């Protein structure tokens, strides 16, 4: 019984870390991959401060996760346009965009 409770507790702890992780980062080979889980979207564009907010079309994988890669090691302010609508996911770091909305911020090394 005790073992079962420990197992359930461990399962809950592990799954709570994953639940709601629809936006995350991964650094690989000097590239920063920015992932957005949005299976129902048809077109996702990424805009960032790295290039004066030019549009970059994200690629979707079979699990409905959209991926964009940028050079790593830099602070980035960014947002998405998903199927024509401005979309800012819940990010760890955010700031006002002075336009009534917010942007995500990625800080390297954190």
């Amino acid at each position, binding site marked *: 019984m005790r073992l079962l409770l420990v197992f359930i507790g461990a399962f809950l702890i592990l799954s709570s870390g994953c639940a709601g992780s629809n936006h995350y980062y991964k650094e690989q080979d000097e590239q920063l991959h920015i992932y957005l889980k949005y299976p129902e979207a048809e077109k996702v564009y990424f805009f960032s401060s790295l290039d004066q907010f030019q549009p970059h079309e994200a690629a979707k994988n079979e699990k409905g996760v959209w991926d964009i890669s940028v050079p790593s090691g830099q602070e980035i302010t960014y947002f998405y*346009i998903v199927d024509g609508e*401005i979309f800012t996911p819940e990010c760890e*770091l955010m*700031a*006002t965009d002075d336009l009534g909305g917010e942007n995500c911020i990625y800080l390297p090394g954190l």
Partner: protein
Amino acid sequence: MKNLLIIIMIIFSIPSFICAGEIDDRLSSDMPAKVKESARQVISLGIENQDIIQMTRTMLENKYTEQQMLAAHDVLIRTKRENLPVDPIINKFYESVAKRSQAEQTVQAMEIVRSRYKTASDFAGEITQDKEQAQTIAQVIAECMIAGIGNGDMHRITELLRQRTMDMNIEEAQVFNKGTLSAVGLMARSGADSGSITEIVSNAFQRGYTVVDMEKLGSAFMKETKDPSSASMLAESYARAIKNGVPADDIGNYKAGGSRNWSGRKSPGAGTHHN
């Protein structure tokens, strides 16, 4: 001598002739003359030709009125004259266009950014007399303000910093100012409210926190925050913990809503601490 002076004047006026020609070549003929003249004025202040030409073309493509284009140029002119960074304002313009904002809103946002950097620059000047250091500090202050630190709280934080670094040499003060403000920015970007962050800084300085302590505080806060809605409660908890004498290394043990006297007794609170 007279001939030499005339030659020097001609040489120095060549760039402006080239510039005027380039503006006429690269901005379409349906661009109002006043806007072309305004663009020349912006460029004459030292802002990159290409940036202004591209921005002006973009405004025309997005059907800005003549008045709106002149207003956008005017923000850049005032920015440059006040020795403030121009790039954040140009970036804000392109961000606003990408978000399909109205022209008026775009120009307003550009002005907000200019005003913010002006305020940040003034605050930086209160902390350090060194011009180069003031520029760096102003950038970090601006980032804190973009993240939500209000003018009043920013004023208080800079005053706390001024007093705290009074007896430090210039290099030490710079490191301390930058490290503390980076921690402030991190907490603000994580969603904590301006007032609670100011209290954290005040309590931390009273406890003699070093710059390393302040940086640990910022990182621990960011890691602890589950979401923006819990950030302010966590900030209050941190402020209490610091006031009660908790060292920076142990701050990460505190969760929102709970506190613990450092004698080891648990005081009433909604949350629990964990190691």
